[in-house]
């Protein structure tokens, strides 16, 4: 039995992180915080007033800081601050080292000690990995990958 064999894209669930506004059915975006193409996509989604669910797809060997950043976003989520942390991470993709993450947590008024413990916790790690694995099973191979109404859709940056 293989845990990572093909499976349909999981539909939106209660613990998906919804971003943006409006009544359109949300896009589902698999991305990470270090990937420059994801940064471009993020800016476009914001510019276009899109509504989207963000799922983590960090690939360590490609973007060494992406896992830590994803865990930081999830740790912030535990204090009700996923969206502001998400925005803060994309606001400066060149600063994703530990002190930069603490600085963001502080600026957002989070309990920094708790944030730091949470971002290293097994539960947060598992939460990020769950997103990643759902993407692998749905055939995601690179970031960013966007699904609209269940179908892979090009909403990729022009730069490749």
């Amino acid at each position, binding site marked *: *039995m*293989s*845990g*990572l*064999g*093909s*499976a349909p894209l999981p539909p939106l669930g209660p613990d998906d992180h919804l971003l943006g506004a409006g009544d359109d059915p949300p896009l589902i975006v698999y991305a990470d915080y270090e990937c420059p193409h994801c940064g471009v996509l993020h800016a476009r989604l914001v510019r276009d007033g899109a509504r989207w669910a963000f799922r983590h797809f960090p*690939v*360590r*060997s*490609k973007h*060494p800081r992406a896992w830590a950043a994803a865990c930081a976003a999830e740790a912030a989520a535990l204090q009700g601050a996923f969206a502001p942390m998400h925005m803060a991470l994309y606001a400066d993709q060149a600063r994703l080292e530990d002190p930069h993450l603490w600085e963001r947590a502080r600026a957002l008024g989070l309990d920094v000690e708790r944030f730091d413990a949470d971002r290293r916790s097994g539960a947060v790690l598992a939460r990020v990995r769950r997103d*990643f694995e759902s993407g*692998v*099973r*749905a*055939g*995601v*191979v*690179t970031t960013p990958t966007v699904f609209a109404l269940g179908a892979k859709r090009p909403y990729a940056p022009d730069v*490749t």
Partner: protein
Amino acid sequence: MSLVAAGSPAPDFKLRRGDGSKFTNADLAGQTTILVFYPFAFSPVCTDQLNLYEEVLEQFAAQGATLYGVSCDAVWSQTAFKEKLGVSIEQLSDFEPKGATCRAFGVYHEKGGMPQRALVMIGPDGIVEWSYMAPSPGDLPGANLIFDALAARDERAR
């Protein structure tokens, strides 16, 4: 020459490992081998493909599967590529005589002078269990396809 099919024995082949030693049919024993043929070291799509597989390498290992990257690049180029990517997936070179192993597996792109993007899974008995060629070299086969093939292998063994 078409892609080697499931059920047929792996053709005789000889590749070079990073340390210059040979990797041949004899090295298939005792593991499920997955040969990841890719067009060129340092090309952008190949980079994403190996990075992605690296991220789920533990799950492959848990199923007794070992992945190898195969291209016609020289050993030194492959080593530099591997280091640049930061991946541990071993690279095997089909440099000289160029493409001989790729031809034997039916994955050589004659005009391009490169392997097509293809995956070949070989059992410990040297029999090809599964093979897949991407519709185009720019198409990246997801890791899920390999896990599907491993699941099918387990199903057959049951």
